[in-house]
Each structure stands twice: as structure tokens, then as C-alpha cells.
């Protein structure tokens, strides 16, 4: 493997995969688990080392290669923790982002934008994400097709994006 190619791969790991790895770790360990950043950094370092050692031979995509390392590390973490805590951490829920200022501001912005949406979009978001009804349950409740529910959710997202930008 050429030095140039390896260098670009390492850059890619940092720029492109760091957020993905972090997301995956947070999702598994819980967003406010203080270990998240450490675990994510460890994974990235591990990936870089492996690439440097030439362990990535292009048999799978870089994505799958990093995914495998990430999953293994998460399983190890949970195993270690469960030895101490005697139970496996719950899958990540959506806790109060109070402590993280950036997240909080972002949430405020989105909340303000949602309030500006028409009731027909708001009610879908309310039932689907806040009440956590399934797509089919929302459809039944509103007398529309499940496909329509998804369409409304997606369209709401588009509208929100516009509202936040302006």
C-alpha cells in the first residue's frame, strides 16, 4: 500500500469516520455516558494503528473495517461494565441535553421552528416522536396511510431545515 494512499485514508478516518464512530458509541453507551469520548478516541487510534500496520487490506470497504473495530470495542466495553455493574447498559434514550450547551441551543432552535409548523405536521411529529406511536398507529389515528405519515415527517424535516437557515 502506497504512503500517499495510506495518508489519505488516515485523513478520511479522522474527517469522515470520527463523527460516525462517535455517533455509534453514543447510541450504544448512552449519549451522556462520560466514557463515550474516550471510547470513540480509542477506536479511532486503534483504526489508525491498524491501517499503519497494513492490517486493512481492502477486502472490505473502509466503512465496514471501521464498523467491525467499533462494534468489537463497544462489546468489550459493555462486557467490562456488566462485570462490574452486573447489568448491561440500556440502549441510548434521549436525555435532557441541558448540560451540553451546544446541543441545548440547537434543540431550542429546532423547538422554535417546530412551533411555526402547521398543525398537520406538528401532530405527526407529536404522535410519532413524542408519543412514540408506530407509523401504523399514527396513520390509524389520523386517518391517513402509513406512507403519508412518513411523507409528512420527511416534509416537516425539510421545512424545519429552511426555517432554521433563515
Amino acid at each position, binding site marked *: 500500500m502506497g504512503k500517499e494512499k495510506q495518508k489519505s485514508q488516515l485523513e478520511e478516518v479522522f474527517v*469522515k*469516520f470520527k*463523527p*460516525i464512530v462517535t*455517533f*455509534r458509541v453514543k447510541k450504544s453507551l448512552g449519549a451522556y455516558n462520560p466514557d463515550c469520548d474516550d471510547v470513540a478516541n480509542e477506536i479511532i487510534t486503534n483504526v489508525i494503528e491498524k491501517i499503519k500496520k497494513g492490517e486493512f487490506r481492502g477486502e472490505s*470497504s473502509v*466503512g*465496514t473495517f*471501521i*464498523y467491525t473495530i*467499533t*462494534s468489537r470495542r463497544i462489546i468489550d466495553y459493555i462486557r467490562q461494565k456488566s462485570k462490574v455493574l452486573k447489568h448491561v447498559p440500556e*440502549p441510548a*434514550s*434521549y436525555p*435532557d*441535553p441541558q448540560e451540553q450547551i451546544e*446541543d*441545548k441551543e*440547537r*434543540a*431550542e432552535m*429546532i*423547538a422554535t421552528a*417546530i*412551533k411555526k409548523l402547521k*398543525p398537520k405536521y*406538528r*401532530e405527526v*411529529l*407529536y404522535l*410519532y*416522536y*413524542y408519543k*412514540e406511536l*408506530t*407509523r401504523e398507529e399514527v396513520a390509524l389515528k389520523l*386517518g391517513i396511510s402509513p406512507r403519508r405519515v*412518513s411523507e409528512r*415527517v420527511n416534509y416537516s*424535516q425539510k421545512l*424545519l*431545515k429552511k426555517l432554521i437557515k433563515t
Partner: protein
Amino acid sequence: MRNCKFEEMIDKYLLNRLSEDEKSIFEEHYFNCPSCFEKMVERDELVAAIKYKGQEIFKDEYVAEAAKGETWWEKVTSFLTPRQWTTVAISAALIAVIVFGVLPMLTPTSPQFYINEDAVRGSKITLISPVWESETVPSKFEWKKMGEDVDYKIYIYDNGNVVWDDTTKDNFIIIPEDIKKTFASGEKYSWQVKAFSPEGSLISVSSKVQFKIHNPE
């Protein structure tokens, strides 16, 4: 932009609705699909904001929902759609019209059970004589015939107690002389006939009819 077929898994993943296998498949996928990852991050922000600020954002919906949960009437009415309720109302009106408007116009007939060609269960035995006052002690008691092959049982009462009874297939009976002698003048007696089918089941009962004797022999 063409949609990735994995996109529909984004919400399920964020809301923890995927099976373990589906989860792994989707996780591997978003490590390889920048489009899905980008959409998922956006969606994640939206869901997080809703979870965090939901009560404030959906104040109206929240109140509406809470009110709905409280009134039983809402619960009952929401059981059917307005269209279904219309159908229910129309059906109820139709039934009311049939029950109160049409049915009374048809002459009501009581159920009839045929024992044989002539005897009809439920029809009354009409007593012919004696029906009220009698100069002499009546020797013949007569009633309307109910049909062929009917057994009649006649009872004569004095103050509710049976003083004499007998059976016959005719629609009349002659009472024996020695019984006649026991009737007292000025006393009130009553008589009654019951009709039985050949199998012995009761078909009909006449009403009790009083008679009075003025001059016993």
C-alpha cells in the same frame, strides 16, 4: 436525489425498534453510506429536540390529548368515525319506524299449537250452561266443542273445594242423581272444564262460572 432503501430504518434505529440483526445491518450500512448517516444525524437532532422540549412545543396537542383522555363521551364517540355514527343513527331510525310504525298495523296473532285438526291449543273453552241462576239443580253441563278426540274434565266447586269431577269425550255431561241431591238451595257453586289431548297434555282451561240454585228437588 435517489433515496437509499435503508432510509426507512433511520427512525426505527433512533427509536430502538430494530431487532439485533437489523440493528447490526443498519449500523454497518451507515458506516458506508454518507447520505444515510447525514440524514440520521439530522433526524436525531429533531428527535432529541422533541424529547427535550416536547411538552413546550406541543402544548396545544398535549392539552387536547389530555382533555380527550378525560371525558368518557369523547372515548365513546371516537370509537366510531362520524361516518359510521351516521350509519348507526340511520339504522336506529329505520328500526324505530318498523317497530312503532309498521308492526302495530299487522294484526297480532297469538301463537297457535295444533294438537289435531280441530283442537287448538291456547283457544278457550266456552261454557254454555248453566251460567248463572237455575231453578232446579242442573243435571246437564254443556260447553262448546273444541274438536274431535279431546278429553274433557269437569269440576264442580263449592267455595273453591272440588265437590265432584268426572271426565268425558262429549261436550256435555250428565251428573249422577246422588250428587245432584247434595246441592243446597241458595248456595253458589262454580264449575270449570279442562281439555286434554289424547296424550294427556292440557290444551285449555275454561274460566270458572258460577251458578245458583233456587229450588232443589
